[in-house]
C-alpha cells in the first residue's frame, strides 16, 4: 500500500494538521509513506517530514507555486500520482487542501471522501470514518479503485513523531496547465497582529454569531465575558461581515480553543465552527432555533432569544460574583 501525504506549509512551517495526517498514514502499517511539499523556497522543510513518518519527500519548488492557490498544485499532484502509482493521497482539511483534493478527484477520476475523522486498513482496503449529517450519524466509507483520496477533518490526529530518520528527498519538475495559472494572488494574508490576551488562553470564551443581529449587539457578549472573566470569540460569518476582528474567530479557519466554559450566543454550530471549540469542558448555547446543530454538542442548550436572556444572565453572574 502506498500513500502520498500533501504537506501544507505557511511561511517556513509545515502545518501541524498535515503532519498529524502523515503520522496517521505512517501508523497504518506496511504502507510506503511519502509526502509532498509544494511552494517556493520550500526545500528546507522536507527533512522535518521524516520525523513524522515519511520515508520519502517530494519537493516541488518553483516560483509559480509561491501563492497558496489550488490549481497548480493539482497539476503537480496528478503527475506524481500517475508517475509513481500512489494508491492513496491523504490531505488535512484546509481551504487550500480541500480545493486541491477535489480538483485532483476530477483530474484522476479518483474517489474523494471528505471530513474523515479516522481511517483504518482492513484486508488491504482502507475504510474511512465519517461523521455525517451534522455529526448525527457515523458512516464507514470506502473507495472503488485507486487513487483513494482522503480529506481529514481538522484536528483528527496528533502530530506524533516516529523513529524515522532523514527522508529521501526528490525534486519534482513541474509542468503547469495554462488555466491553472490564471488565478493570481494580489494580496496574501500575513500573520495577524495579536493584541491583548488571546482567546486560546482564556478559561472562559463567550462567542457571538450572526444571531446577535448586529455588530453593536456584540456588547452583550462582551459584557457577559467581562462578568465571567473571559474573552470574546466570534464565528466566521460575523468576522467576514466585519462585525468582529479575525483574531477572535473560532473554528477551522480561526482559532482552536478549549476553555473550561464556552458560551455560544446565536451560533448555529456548523462543523467548521465545531472543530474550533468542541473540546471545551462545558458548552452552553443559547439559540432561538430548537433544531440548531449547536444543541447536539452542548452540555446546556437554551432555546431562546439572546437579546432577552443575555442581559439578565450578565446581571445575575455579576451579582453572584459580587462585582
Amino acid at each position, binding site marked *: 500500500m502506498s500513500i502520498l501525504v500533501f504537506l501544507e506549509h505557511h511561511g517556513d512551517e509545515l502545518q501541524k494538521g498535515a503532519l498529524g495526517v502523515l503520522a496517521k498514514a505512517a501508523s497504518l502499517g506496511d504502507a510506503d509513506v511519502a509526502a509532498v511539499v509544494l511552494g517556493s523556497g520550500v526545500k528546507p522543510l522536507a527533512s522535518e517530514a521524516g520525523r513524522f513518518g515519511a520515508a520519502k519527500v517530494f519537493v516541488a519548488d518553483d516560483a509559480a507555486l509561491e501563492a497558496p492557490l489550488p490549481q497548480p498544485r493539482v497539476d503537480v499532484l496528478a503527475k506524481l500520482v500517475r508517475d509513481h502509482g500512489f494508491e492513496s493521497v491523504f490531505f488535512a482539511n484546509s481551504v487550500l487542501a480541500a480545493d486541491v483534493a477535489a480538483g485532483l478527484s476530477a483530474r484522476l477520476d479518483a474517489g474523494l471522501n471528505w471530513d474523515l475523522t479516522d481511517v483504518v486498513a482492513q484486508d488491504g482496503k482502507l*475504510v474511512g470514518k465519517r461523521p455525517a449529517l451534522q455529526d448525527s450519524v457515523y458512516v464507514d466509507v470506502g473507495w472503488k479503485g485507486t487513487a483513494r483520496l482522503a480529506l481529514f477533518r481538522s484536528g483528527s490526529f496528533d502530530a506524533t513523531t516516529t523513529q524515522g530518520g532523514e527522508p529521501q528527498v526528490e525534486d519534482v519538475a513541474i509542468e503547469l496547465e495554462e488555466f491553472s495559472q490564471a488565478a493570481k494572488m494580489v494580496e496574501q494574508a500575513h500573520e495577524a497582529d495579536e493584541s491583548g490576551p488571546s482567546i486560546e488562553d482564556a478559561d472562559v470564551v463567550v462567542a457571538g454569531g450572526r444571531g446577535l443581529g448586529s455588530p453593536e449587539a456584540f456588547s452583550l457578549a462582551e459584557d457577559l465575558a467581562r462578568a465571567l472573566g473571559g474573552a470574546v470569540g466570534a464565528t466566521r460569518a460575523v468576522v467576514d461581515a466585519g462585525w468582529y476582528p479575525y483574531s477572535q474567530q473560532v473554528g477551522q479557519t480561526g482559532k482552536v480553543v478549549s476553555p473550561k466554559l464556552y458560551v455560544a450566543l446565536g451560533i448555529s454550530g456548523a462543523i467548521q465552527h465545531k472543530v474550533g471549540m468542541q473540546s471545551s469542558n462545558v458548552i452552553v448555547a443559547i439559540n432561538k432555533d430548537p433544531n440548531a446543530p449547536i444543541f447536539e454538542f452542548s452540555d446546556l442548550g437554551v432555546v431562546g432569544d439572546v437579546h432577552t436572556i443575555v442581559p439578565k444572565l450578565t446581571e445575575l453572574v455579576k451579582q453572584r460574583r459580587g462585582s
Partner: protein
Amino acid sequence: MKIAVCVKQVPEGTSLKLDPGTKRLDRSGEGALNHFDANAVEEALRLKESAGDAEVVVVSVGPAGAADALRKALAMGADRALLVSDDAVAGSDLVATSRVLAAALEREGADLVLFGQQASDSDGAVLWAAVADRLRRPLVSQAAELSVADGSLRAKRQTEFGYDVIQAALPAIVAVSDAINEPRYPSLKGIMGAKKKPQETLTLGDLGVDVGQVGEAGSKTEVYEFSLPPSRGDSRKIEDDGKAAEQIVEFLAEKRLV
C-alpha cells in the same frame, strides 16, 4: 455577461437521515433550496444589477423535485433555470456529479459560474473545485467579497491564515461564503413571475453523458455501514420561559464555573 449559479435541492430542515436500504440520503421528504446557495443567487443578482446587462441562469443536477429549488431562485430574480434530471444520476458521488454538472455548464458557456459555500446535506464544500478542473477554468473559493470589472474578477477569501485577495480573468468559477451578502426574500410579484420564466429539463442523453459514468456505476466512493454516535452523557436542553438566565446560572454554579 452571463452568470450561471449552481444550486442544490436539499431535504428540508431537520429531516436529514440516511436510508438504511440504499445507504443514501433519504430524499423522500420535503425539499428546499440549499440555503447557502441563496447567497450565490443573491450575488449573481447584485452583479447583474451593477453590470446593467447580464443574464442569470440557475443550474441544478437532481431529481424532478429539484424544480422547486430552482423556482425559488427564479422568484428571487434569476432569469432562467436548467435542471439536469435523470434516474441514472441518483447515487452519484463527487466524481460523477461533477461530470454531469460540468457537462451542463459547458453547454451554457457562462462567463462566471457561482457556487454556494456548501450543500447543507453533504457539507462537502468541494464540488466547485472538481467542476473547475473539468471545465479548465480558474477558481476562487470561500469568497467573502466579489467584484467584476473589465472582464476580470477580484475576490477576497478567508483561509486559516487570514485574508487573501485573488484576481482572475473571466470566464471563471467562484464559490461564495455565506457572509458575502444577505439574500433577498422573493417578492409576491417575483413568485408569480417565476412560473412564466423559461425552465428547461435535460437528461444525460441531451448532454451526451454516458449513463455508465454517473450514479453508482460512475462513482468512486462507497458507503459500507453506518452507526449512531455515542450519546453525550447528561446534556440538557431547556426552553426559555422567562427563567432561562436563572437556570443557566444554577447550571454554572453546579459546575463550579461561577
